[in-house]
């Protein structure tokens, strides 16, 4: 036995004898309130929602516990639903791509060229809007895009347009821009955490060995920050699947996403229909999380001080 394993064996010896039942209960007990709470308020409700999605309501919107697949069949048969769902996926992908395209150069610059002390300040500047109210961050865009917003004011002042335009808000483009804004900090935090651990001299080494800058970037940097990139994508893509406030506030009539349909069903008391759509999203989210679970670094995004 080397000295190294001996010392770790010393530590293990403290825990080695199988603890008594009482001791084991004592150690696990603090976990019980949390487990009970999440089971009762999260796991069971998700299960109930699944049940609801196989039930139906009668014409009075009373729940009828009759097993059927109609809610799902309707989803796949009605072009509006499918179209909204595909549109949601396209929107989520586009925002994720744009978010990466902005946050990668941003964090790269931050980590590579900004001094350590200043980095913290800039990072804080990115996190701060992230912790302020999500509703207010969306509302704030009315001040830019709205009829009386800054963009109109600017364009009129520069003489590009004569009358305030209503074209900037209540459409898909507005939803796209605001979603990038809302979810940018997630992407930036995830990428920052990954880039922070990267040793940039490797890029110089690669170039010394004859790699072009783009080759060094692709083959040296990208593979090493892959978990960060995946975390960033997940943290932008998944919330957009459940996004309904941004479309409501800046999307107008045409800007609805899939979660808007869920909200509409819920408002009308059609819980089973809403539940079926929610389950479709839940399945999508779960599959994504399972595929990428090894690369996902939740702590990097949410537990930074």
């Amino acid at each position, binding site marked *: 036995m080397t000295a190294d394993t001996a010392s770790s064996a010393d530590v293990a010896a403290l825990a080695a004898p199988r603890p008594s039942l009482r001791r084991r209960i004592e*150690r*696990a007990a*603090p*976990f019980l*309130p*949390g*487990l009970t*709470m*999440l089971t009762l*308020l999260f*796991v*069971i*409700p998700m299960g*109930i*929602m699944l049940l*609801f999605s196989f039930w139906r309501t009668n014409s009075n919107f009373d729940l009828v516990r009759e097993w059927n697949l109609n809610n799902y069949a309707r989803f796949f048969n009605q072009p509006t639903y499918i179209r909204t769902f595909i549109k949601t996926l396209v929107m989520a992908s586009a925002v994720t791509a744009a978010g990466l395209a902005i946050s990668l150069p*941003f964090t790269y610059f*931050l980590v590579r*060229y900004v001094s350590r002390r200043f980095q913290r300040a*800039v990072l804080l*500047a*990115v996190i*701060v*809007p992230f*912790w*302020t*109210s999500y*509703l*207010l961050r969306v*509302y*704030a865009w*009315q*001040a*830019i895009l709205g*009829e*009386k*917003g800054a963009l*109109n*004011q600017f364009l009129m002042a520069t003489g590009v347009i004569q009358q305030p335009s209503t074209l900037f808000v209540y459409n898909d483009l507005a939803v796209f821009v605001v979603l990038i*804004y809302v979810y*940018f900090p997630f992407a930036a935090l995830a990428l920052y955490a990954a880039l922070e651990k990267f040793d*940039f*001299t490797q890029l110089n080494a690669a170039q*010394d060995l004859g790699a072009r*800058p783009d080759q060094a970037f692709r083959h040296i940097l990208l593979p090493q920050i892959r978990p960060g990139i995946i975390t960033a994508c*997940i943290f932008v893509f*998944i*919330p957009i699947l459940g*996004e*309904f*406030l941004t479309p409501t506030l800046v999307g107008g009539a045409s800007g609805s996403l899939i*979660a808007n349909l869920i*909200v509409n069903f*819920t408002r009308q008391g059609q*819980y089973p229909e809403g*539940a079926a759509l929610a389950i479709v999203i839940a399945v999508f989210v779960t599959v994504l999380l399972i595929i990428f679970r090894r690369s996902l670094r*939740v*702590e990097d995004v*949410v537990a930074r*001080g």
Partner: protein
Amino acid sequence: MAKRTSALETMPVSPLAQQTRGCLSLVAGATLVFLYLPIVFLVLFSFEQADTPGFPITGLTLHWYEKMLTDSAIHSALFNSVIVAVIVAILATTIGTMAAFPLVRGGIRFPGTARILFTLPIMIPGVLIGLGLLVFITLLGIKLGLHTVIAGHLVFTTPFVVLIVAARLQGFDRRLEWAAADLGASNRQTLRHIVLPLIAPAIVAGALLSVTLSIDEFVVTFFTIGPQLTLPLFIITQIKFGVTPEVNALATVILVVTLTVFGVGSFLLGTGRRFRRREPE
């Protein structure tokens, strides 16, 4: 870090490095402007004299702040929000801190599953959490109200507390506990006099985070609330039915309060770093 920078300076780099760096700094600057511009205009419009927020600015006034202070609808919404936030913070911090111990130190079966269970509510869109609770509550025949909002907020605030406290526990020097035990302290005494004081900054930060998350939460509240209004719900009814600069004034106050709470929280997390374990066990 200093070593790395000097290596970069002396090493020959790509001839395009200078330009790349210039472009990147432009992108970074534009991004920061992008992040703050909407907030700047939101705040600016709260001082607008006219009845609707926006350009052209007709004059600056504090009128909307005064109006906000005497608006009874805002008072009751604020009252509801604070009640919910305080109860949520107390429960989430207690439950979350307790759960963090076995998660970090072992003692539970299936620790991997437990960790996933405590991460999911952070990742899952609020719509699903909200609708799930709503159908569950409907099935049980419970009336919707602030109590159901509290239940909903607990689902996503507790995991945040768990993550923050667990991160601090992970870096905790267990030898301090062993030393206390050597000196004759009971488990309970060690917990009270050694462990809790040292992880206190993380616990307080978790509590403050729960408060801000709860006060700002819109989606889950939207599904689980009864006839009452919380601040975000009040704001959205205002936005939908005729917005005045009063909403901007309220938003500005909320921003300032959230930032203050957030600042205190991250300061506390910073002080906690001093007690990090210096070498692996």
